[in-house]
C-alpha cells in the first residue's frame, strides 16, 4: 500500500538496530581521532573560561564603574571646565539681572563686564566688589557709570567658592581673558575686610587698582 520507491527501514527493525547500536561498547577512538578532539575541546573550554572571567563582573548585581585614567593635563582641563560651568550658572542667577547675560550691561546704568578693565585687573578687585558692593562714580571702557546715587551695586551674598567660580567665569567669558581666581584668596580678602560694612567707593578702588589704565 505504501508507495515507497525505496524499501527504507521498518520501525520494528529501527528500534532493534538502534538499541543494539546503543548497547555496543565503543572504545573512544572508534571513528574519531582523539587528539584533535581533545584539542578542540581544550580550546573551547579555554576560550569560554576567558570569556567568563572577563565579562561576568564577579557575578555582582551592578555594572562595574568605568574607571578612566586621566593624565594630569586632562584632569586640570576638566577641573577648569567644571569651575567655569559652575561660574556661568552663578552668573546667570546672581549677576545677569543687572549686567545682562551677554555681559554688556545697560548704558549709563549698569557697567559692562565684557572687556571691562575692572574685571581683568588684579583679581582682588572683582572679589572685593562682589563681597562688599560698589558705589560712586567710575569709568568703565571710557564711559562714566554710577553718576546717580541709585546706580550702585550691593554686596552679593555668596560663599567664597562661588565667588571664586563666578569671578573666574567673568574674567574668561565674552572675550575676556585673565587669570583664575582661587577660593583661598577670596577667603583671605573676606577675613581682611571683615570689619567693613560699607560699599567700596568707586574712585578709591579706581585709583588703587587702575591708576595706570584709566587715564582718560
Amino acid at each position: 500500500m505504501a508507495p515507497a520507491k525505496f524499501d527504507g527501514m521498518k520501525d520494528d527493525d529501527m528500534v532493534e538496530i538502534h538499541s543494539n547500536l546503543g548497547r555496543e561498547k565503543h572504545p573512544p577512538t572508534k571513528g574519531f581521532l582523539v587528539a584533535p578532539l581533545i584539542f578542540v575541546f581544550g580550546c573551547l573550554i579555554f576560550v569560554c573560561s576567558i570569556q567568563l572571567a572577563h565579562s561576568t563582573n564577579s557575578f555582582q548585581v551592578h555594572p562595574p564603574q568605568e574607571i578612566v585614567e586621566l593624565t594630569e593635563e586632562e584632569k586640570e582641563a576638566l577641573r577648569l571646565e567644571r569651575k567655569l560651568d559652575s561660574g556661568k550658572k552663578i552668573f546667570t542667577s546672581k549677576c545677569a539681572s543687572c549686567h545682562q547675560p551677554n555681559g554688556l550691561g545697560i548704558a549709563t546704568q549698569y557697567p559692562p563686564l565684557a572687556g571691562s578693565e575692572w574685571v581683568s585687573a588684579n583679581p582682588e578687585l572683582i572679589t572685593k566688589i562682589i563681597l562688599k558692593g560698589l558705589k560712586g562714580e567710575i569709568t568703565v571702557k571710557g564711559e562714566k557709570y554710577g553718576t546717580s546715587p541709585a546706580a550702585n551695586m550691593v554686596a552679593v551674598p555668596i560663599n567664597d567658592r562661588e565667588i571664586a567660580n563666578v569671578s573666574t567665569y567673568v574674567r574668561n567669558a565674552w572675550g575676556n581673558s585673565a587669570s583664575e581666581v582661587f577660593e583661598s584668596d577670596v577667603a583671605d580678602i573676606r577675613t581682611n575686610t571683615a570689619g567693613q560694612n560699607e560699599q567700596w567707593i568707586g574712585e578709591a578702588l579706581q585709583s588703587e587698582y587702575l591708576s595706570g589704565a584709566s587715564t582718560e
Partner: protein
Amino acid sequence: MKFTAEQIIDKSAKWVISFFIASAGLWLLAAALLAYCAAAKLTDPFFLSTFEFFTYGKVKIAQANAFVYGWGGNSIFAVSIWIIARLAQAELRGRFLLIASGIIWNVGITLGLLGILDGHMNAHEMLEMPREIWPLLFISYSVIASFIIVTHRSRSKHETIAPQWFILASLLWFPALFIIAWNGLEINPARGTLQAVLSMWFGQSLIWLWLTPFALGVAYYLIPAITGRPIDKYYLAIFGFWCIALLAPWSVVHHLEGGPVPMWIPAIGTVMSIAMIFPIAVASTNFHATAFKDIDIVWNNLPLRFVIFGTLSYTISSYIGVVFSLPAVAKLTQFSIINEFHFNQRVYGFFSMIVFGAVYHMLPRVTGKDIPVGAKSFHFWTSALGVLMLLLAYLIGGLTHGVLAQQPSLDWASSVIASIRPYFLITQIAFVILGLSQLVFVINIWKVLFPNPFQFLNNSSNDSAKNAVA
C-alpha cells in the same frame, strides 16, 4: 483480510492525525497571511493602516503565535502521535479525548489570536495571548501529551531510541517551561529585571526546547526510515541530547547582551552558546553522515529532501547563531533585524521544512492516498527559494542595519531606514512566494485527507431520494 501491524497502527491513528494535520494546515495559511501583512507594513506603512485590528504590533505578534502554537503545536501533535505509535508498535490510545482536546487547543488559539488583535495582549514574549486562554491551552496540551506518553508506555520493546527521546522530551519540556514562566510572571510575579529576563527566556527556550528537539527527533526517525541505514555514529546521539537539554536553556540568555541585567547573565549565555557547538555538531554528523551515503535517495525522495534541507539549515544557521552570540558581534547586531533572521530560520528554515517532509512521508501511509509529485516538488522548490530569500535578506539586511545604526552621525530616516528598505521589500516578496507554496501544500493535504468533502451531502440526498421513492 489480514493487516500488517503498521497498517493497524495507522488505522487507529488515522482520524486523530487527519484532524491535527488539517488544522495545522489552516494555521499555516493564517500565519502566512499575517506574515505578509506585517512585511508589507514595513515597506508601506499605510498598508491596511485604517483598521485598528491590523496595526503592525498586533499583526506581527499574532503571526508569531499562529505560527508557533497553531501550526507548530498541531503539527507536533500529529507527527509525534504517528512516530511514537509506530516506534512503540502500539495502537493509539484515547482517540476521542485526543480529538476533543485538539478542538479545545484550536479554539483556545483562535480566541487568543482574536484577543491579541483586539488589543488584549499580555506583555510577555510568546505568552502574548490573553491570560484567560492559557489554562485552556495548558489543560488540552496536557491531555494530548499524556495520551501520547500512554501510547509510548504500551510499547512492545523496552529499549528506546533517539527519535523517541527527542520527541518525548520536547512534549514534556513545553509544559515545564510554561509552568516556570507562568509562575514567575503571573502567579508570583518576579520583581524588576528578573521578569524581563524570564519573559525573554521563555520565548527563546520555547524554540530551543520545544520546536527544535521535536524537529531533531523527526529527522532522527525519517532519515533511517527512508534511507534504510542506521544512524551513523549513533552512540553520539545521547551526548547530543543531553547537551541540548543542559545547555540550551542557558544559552538563550545571550540575547540580553547589552541589556540592563547583571552582566553575568549574558556572559553565561555566550559561553553556553559557544558550547552549543557540540550538540549541533553531533546532530549534523548523525544526519548528514547517514544521509549523504546515498546522495541519490536524498535527491529523489521528496520527504527526505525536505528533511535534509531542514537539517542543513539547522546546522549552518546554528553556527551563524554562535558567531552572533559573541559579545563583539552582538554589540553590532543586537538591535537590528537580525533577530528576525534567528526566528525565521528556526521556524521556517528548520522546523517547518522537517515537518513538511514528515507530513509527506506519513500521509500516504495513513490515508493510503498519495500527493501528486508535481505539487510536492513545486512546494519544495518554492519553499526553498522563499526561505533562502527570506533568510539572506534578514541576514544581510540585519548586518547593514546594525552597522549603520552604530553611526550616530547618520540621519536615521534618510540613510539607515532607506538602506534597509530594499531588504524589507525582498522579505515581502519572499513571504508571497512562501504563502503560495504553503497554499499548494495545504490544498494538497486537504485533498488527500478529505478527498470528497461533499460526499455526505450526496449520500444524504441519495438517502432521502430513496426514502421518497419508498
